[in-house]
């Protein structure tokens, strides 16, 4: 496992945060997971603004897990701004959400999401999904060269 890759989890539901963290833990993903609970905080973290002005420049996430429904700015707003910003446009974004609506899928891909995963109700399936996510985005996937990110 790529130990340097940070996972940024953008999720407002504390139950889902807890379950996601547990799913990654159960599927042997030991990377650092940073949790923010709304869209504005996600942008602050990535752009090192607001509460995250002092964040280490090296701690740019390897992948962002983004919920669709979020307070303040929702997932699609966050995605649109990430893709519009030179510093964050190449970071892989996985939409992780309850929705299976075609319109959500289409809009996510249109705005530049790299993947779309529906959170299963069955926890065993959720662990399986987390394992695949970790394997693909942190190990198999070749990230853009440093400095380009």
């Amino acid at each position, binding site marked *: 496992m790529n130990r340097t890759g940070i996972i940024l989890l953008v999720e407002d*539901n504390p139950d889902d945060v807890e379950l996601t963290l547990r799913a990654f833990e159960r599927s042997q993903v030991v990377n650092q997971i940073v949790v923010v609970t709304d869209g504005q905080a996600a942008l602050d973290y990535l752009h090192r603004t607001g509460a995250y002005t002092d964040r280490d420049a090296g701690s740019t996430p390897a992948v962002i897990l983004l919920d669709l429904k979020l307070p303040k700015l929702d997932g699609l707003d966050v995605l649109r701004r990430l893709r519009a910003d030179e510093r964050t446009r190449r970071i892989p974004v996985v939409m992780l959400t309850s*929705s*299976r609506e075609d319109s959500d899928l289409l809009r996510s891909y249109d705005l530049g999401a790299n993947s779309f995963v529906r959170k299963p109700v069955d926890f065993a399936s959720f662990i399986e999904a987390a394992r695949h996510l970790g394997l693909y985005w942190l190990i198999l996937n070749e990230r853009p060269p440093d400095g380009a990110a």
Partner: protein
Amino acid sequence: MSLVLVVDDSLTVRMDLADAFEAVGVRAVPCATLAEARRALELEPVELVVLDVLLPDGDGVDFLRELREAPQSAHLPVLVLSAEAEVKHRIRGLETGANEYVGKPYDRGYVVARARELLHARQAPGTDRAPVLIIDDSITFREELRELLQRGGHTVLSAGSGEDGLRLIAAQRPGALLVDGVLPGIDGATVIRRVRLDAALRGLPCILLTASEDRGAELLALDAGADAFVRKDEELEVILARLATVLRHAEQRPPDQAASTLGPKKILAVDDSPTYLHELAAALRAEGYDVVPVRSGEEALELLAVQAVDCVLLDLVMPGLGGHETCRRIKAVPVMREIPLIMLTALEDRGAMLEGLSVGADDYIAKSADFEVLKARVRAQLRRRQFEDEHRRVRERLLQKELEATEARAVRELAETRAGLVAELERKNRELEAFSYSVSHDLRAPLRSIDGFSQALLEDHADALGPRGRDYLGRVRAAAQRMAELIDDLLELSRVSRAELCVGRVDLSALAQAVVAELRRREPERTVTVDIEPGMEMAADRKLMRIVLENLLGNAWKFTSRAADAHITLGTAATEDGAGWAVCDNGAGFDVTFADKLFRPFQRLHSVSEFSGTGIGLATVQRIIDRHGGRVWADATVGAGAIFTFTVAQRQGAGGAGR
């Protein structure tokens, strides 16, 4: 310049009429015999014929019949000019197709004026003439009559029942109605009664046809409000003559002539005394009127059926049908009701006068040798009629305007209502979409927590829970997952109702193979023989059809799980709706008494412990098949299997690319 033939054996008449026509700029060719007339007709186009009846080389009415039977002269206006005094001759001429019948001695001014009216009517465009509607349940008779009327220059509509006819009347506004008395649904008299009840259609001239010899039928027809009555065993030409008469009675004169009392007028004089009739006719002809003298009420009614007149002078005391009864019958006919009718009597009888007026006479006058008073009364009645016509026209115009305004308002209101409904529907759809969305998102989140934390408890605290606690948590998880399934199925049901149909060519065989492959992947331990007919294609929405197959094949898969030798087939099937497809299995089956319930949401015929499922799948299938304009139904035997058959509507250009 118009060309008129004057066919008469009397030189005086030929010269007189030729002069009269030349004076108004109409060229007249005099012919002394029918042979001359035939030659003249071959030489140049003739626009009107003035025709005597008694000619040296033949009968004028026979010649008229000849003209009517030849296509090139079928519509040629013919004015018959005859010395024959008998009403039956006059009727014979009119029924053979004369456009006008003038008795001798004639008034030349009247003849020329009528001839010019006929020429004018001929030049007026005939295309905007409203069609004649025939209602008869015999297609043979309808076609025969249609041919006749078309030869007579009418356009024709037809209907096989009173109900259809009334719908056509409302939609097409015909110019006249010919209706059979005996019809399968509502009868002819009822059709006419309904027409008379409708303010917009009240003026429609109606002729009742009947096969019956019964005189009572005629009274029934008049009672219903028919303008004329024809027995079907009479010659068909009679129908044409009656039709022409009711149309002329009903027709509105062009506005420029409306106010003029100077146009040619025809007066029907009815009296049993030939002497008085002769004097009366002479006095009125001297005023420029054309006079039709008849000797009885019966003759008057018979004549009025084929001859339109402008005024009726009616003797009160006559043998046979008396003046009162004749008057009552004339006034009972809607198109004749407006004809001024003056009752004549030798008696200065107040009671008789009141009775005459009560049956509808417009005026009442005592007979005397001095005709000045009578002429004045006739002039007054004709003037009154003109004024009434004018008033009626003004009223009708106003009514028409009002009607149009009302219609426009109704159309506007309808459009507004429709726009409102569409907006409301769109709003409801948006609401439903928002609702489905939040159901999909928000109802699942708590289920995830229930399942996830139950699992966490099982993993982290299995010992502390003990076997019973672990069992309970297992049930909690099963319940949460079942609810998630329900939510997914409900969302799918709502999605297939809302999704736009993208119809294209679907390879049903390939789609079914893919669905079966997925079933085998999920339960590799099962051995099921699946036969799918190759090469099945249909025009449908591929995505929705996949859901249909997932449900039908999925059910067959599920319900054969306890069958020893599970076997599923999918193939084309002949149904009473045309070609369809059927999924067949040898599984658990069900009691067919409940076959209809199957397609309602949440209806299950098996307990969850027997076979899993939410009871929404078949409702979804039905919704999809519905949207394809098809039908789905089930047949089964308990313990022996089930067949689900479905069809979709045939679409034009199904082979083309889907949208």
